[in-house]
């Protein structure tokens, strides 16, 4: 018998999880898998009774880590169009998101997990550096350092826009 509490939680959080995963991974099977895994972990977590902001931060951290792990394992070749990103993100700045996602895919094998997590949050989800620092539990200075290191890698690859 389906658990009505699961359905309630699903309706409340899954649209957010699904959109977040689509931003990171495109509208792919991988994005669907990461979204499902994030939701299942949420159901198993001990934060269900916490306030919405805490649950959202948990969702962002967990889905980002799952996506980064997937990227690092597979080094995905994401092929998506700007229109698809725009539809997935439901937001302006689709070209930036698309570019950031392609960079992440290219750097997945060489960048550290933390660099990729911060890059996802700041470059794909559009978090400010203070927001990303608070969400990851690191300092703003560390966020800047990680993003700087990532940009150096992109420069080395000749990928970053002048």
């Amino acid at each position, binding site marked *: 018998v*389906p*658990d009505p*509490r*699961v*359905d309630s*939680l*699903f*309706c*409340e*959080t*899954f*649209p*957010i999880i*699904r*959109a*977040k995963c689509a*931003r990171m991974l495109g509208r792919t099977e991988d994005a669907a898998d990461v979204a*499902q895994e994030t*939701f*299942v972990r949420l*159901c*198993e977590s*001990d934060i*269900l*009774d916490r*306030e*919405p*902001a805490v*649950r*959202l931060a948990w969702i*962002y951290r967990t889905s980002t880590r799952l996506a980064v792990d997937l990227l690092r394992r597979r080094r995905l070749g994401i092929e998506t169009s700007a229109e698809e990103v725009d539809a997935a*993100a*439901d*937001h*302006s*700045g689709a070209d*930036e998101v698309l570019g950031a996602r392609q960079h992440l895919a290219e750097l997945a094998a060489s960048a550290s997990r933390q660099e990729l997590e911060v890059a996802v*949050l700041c470059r794909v*989800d*559009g*978090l*400010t550096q203070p*927001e990303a620092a608070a*969400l990851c539990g690191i300092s703003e200075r560390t966020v800047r350092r990680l993003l700087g290191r990532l940009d150096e890698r992109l420069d080395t690859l000749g990928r970053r826009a002048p």
Partner: protein
Amino acid sequence: VNAHPSQYTLDRAALGASVAPPDAAHLSACARCAAVVASRRAAPPRPAWLDDVRLPPAAPRPRLPWLRWVALLPVATAAVAALVLLPGDRRPVDGPEGIRAKGTPSVAVYLKRADAVVAWDGRAPLRTGDRIRLGVRGAGYGYVSVASIPPAPAQPGVLYSGALSPEGETLLPIGFRVDDRGETEQLSVVLAAKPVGEEEHRTLPGPDRIRATWTTRITLPKEARR
């Protein structure tokens, strides 16, 4: 530079979390962002895999590492339970703290099984789900500490420390639920004139040590798993 709030901010708004006033003003004025927030609140199609997802049966309390029991809120019905008085080892003390002509300290074990309160006879195995509370008669000792004694080399873990009523019995404000793991549980109870340190639980009572404490250990056998 994107003039719109971040996706994170939009999701905060969708979940009903607070957003900064400038972002709230933006959301009320920007139809596109408002539409995004609305879309994040729209019920998604229900996938088949959701049938296999379960939430924990109850909001789990963090398990304490020391013992595979769960602390419970006080159980009002425990007051009618029978009790077993457990002997202790009084450790003599020099000085004024040794003046305690108030009888012998004792620990009472209150056992609640299902809806019935039964007397633990000191020997019968406990069942999974049984609930226990302790009543302590300090007989002049002002403080109590209760700890679980795990198998070596693990260290005792304090379950409760607090003051005792100067007269009569103090029903400790914690209880325990017996789980199905292990064959026994052992508790250490230490009474003292001052707050009891964790180290007091690390040694067995013995006549060679002169301290201002009274201590006892309670071994609770568990019913074998079927």
